[in-house]
């Protein structure tokens, strides 16, 4: 996959950090404002897709990125099921909200919901990036 021009590369280098921070903000405030795990995960995936599109890549770096995304996706899924099972082991019911609820409208409130949002965002981000790589890698198959 070829990269883009120098202007696009420079702007991408500046903008990627801000998009990532914005995505993390949407994830962490998922229990207070609209958004949450899925929307934030899509934005995080957009960061990585933007880097690939702007800088281009060869087959080797795509394979390495695909492996890394697969491992992160499994970690996200295991984290989510782990939170649910720990509700079972520590407090008695599957998926119980067992962490202290705290004061409303603060960042660390609402029990397990922020952690579930983080797990979902890791999984969704890595999953969408894997889908992008699967669709983009077809170019190598079709050009052969």
């Amino acid at each position, binding site marked *: 996959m070829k990269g883009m021009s120098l202007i696009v590369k420079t702007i991408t280098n500046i903008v990627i950090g801000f998009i990532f921070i914005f995505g993390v903000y949407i994830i962490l405030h998922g229990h207070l404002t609209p958004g949450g795990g899925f929307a934030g995960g899509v934005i995080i995936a957009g960061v990585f897709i933007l880097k690939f599109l702007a800088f281009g890549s060869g087959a080797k770096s795509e394979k390495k990125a695909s*492996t890394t995304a*697969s*491992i992160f*996706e*499994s*970690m996200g*899924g*295991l984290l989510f*099921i782990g939170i*649910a*099972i720990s*509700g*079972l082991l520590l407090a*008695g*019911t*599957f*998926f*119980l*909200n067992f962490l202290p609820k705290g004061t409303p409208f603060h960042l660390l409130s609402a029990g397990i919901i922020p952690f579930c949002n983080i797990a979902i965002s890791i999984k969704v981000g890595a999953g969408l990036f894997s889908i992008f790589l699967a669709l983009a890698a077809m170019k190598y198959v079709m050009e052969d």
Partner: protein
Amino acid sequence: MSFIPMFFALPLISAFLIPILGKIYKPLVWIVCTVVSFVLFILALYGIAVTQQIPMIVYKMGNWPPPLGIVMTFDSFSAFMVLVISIIVFAGSLFSLRYMSHYTGQWKFYTLFMLITAGMMGVSITGDLFNMFVFLEIAAISSYALVAFGVDAEELEASFKYMVMGEIGGLTFLLAIALIYAKTSTLNLADISNSLQVMGHTPFFWMVLGMMLFAFSIKAALVPFHSWLPDAHPAAPAPISSLLSGIFIKVLGIYTTARIVFNVFGLTRANDPQFFNVLIGLGLLSISFAGLTALSQKDYKRLLGFSSVSQIGYIMLGFGIGNYYGVTGAIFFILAHALAKGLLFLTAGSVVHVTGTRDLNKLAGLGERMPTTAWSFRFGGLSLVGIPPLVGFWAKFYIIIGIIKAGFIWVALVAILLSVLTLAYLLKIENNVFMKKGQIDAKEAPFTMRIAMVFLVVLIVILGIGFQPIINFIVGPAAHALLRGLEYSHLVFNSFAANF
């Protein structure tokens, strides 16, 4: 009572673990898959033992009571479906150790295998309508990917056809859920049942029931919505074909139809005979049309695919009769057909693994060179036709008794006559594959594949000889769980098990 979420949590955990383990140490993946299937089998037996004493276990997720939260309602019919799923998944997992050496990327296969198991288990035990849709889509999307697993031209074409038809069914189900929510403003199955009884049998009631029946008939491959099945089931790898024909079309089509018709919409034979006559008509149409088309097939697995469509017609016929014998026969037929058709697809896989072809005109004389496969095919085929004392005979017997008790003598005669079609196409395979004299290079199948086939044969024989305790303790309570109809919602809301 916390073993209930383990039914879908364990396959999900192993599905997420397998990509990581697959990069560290490859044989570990198959070990994880088989161990998890065996643990699910033990848990399913424990579930059957528990539902003998407690008629329904209600497990609240996150401790939210119904109708606020999602609940898992585990009654005898759910316990029965979970047992059947775990048997076929265990046999398929044993079989796939040597069979999957044809394909690359094996960790992807095992991940999808565990995901489809989690989806089917989730559909069987959930008590919430949207949760049923989510698990149904998990299982369906995994099956689309599994059908296209070896990326040859025919498999991709079959998977695309299957995907288009399956998704139309899934989206119609979602539209029906939206309409039900608009009318009753709840998603819990028991609460919907109460609201629909207050509403009565308005045209809206019949429209939503028709949409759901359309969606589930596509998934269950009833004629005239069956045309994806003869392309999709041969294209899949053999353990997946046995899973798809053995339990997937039954869990996603027949279990959901039975649960919705009997427990949620509360229809009974006495009150709504026309609806049940429609089910009988669909059943007879499936048996006859698919049975006749199966006679002219030249591909081993495609013939078995048409046979699956035909046998699903028997199950729908049993549910359409609607009395105790009919429903018991239909549920027992689910078990009998799962064992028999699962075994037949595994023998087909064994033949393909050794000879490399599925064409009935090219295969010949494998009877002496593959004795285990040949005898497994004979046992499975005899059970499917309905020869005593194997388990298929008792299942068909109960259905025929149910038809005669309901008074449809001519339907019973037609059903018995159409069994001859089953014998005809199975004899075609037996003749062409195992008995014909010919020169084809073959040796016996590998050890784990033989173990999987012998396991199913042993189950067919044991459950056939000892069918009476199975009817009394496992199938009978499942039929009662369906036939008590609207008491389902009373049990969910008042059950003392809701305090577990």
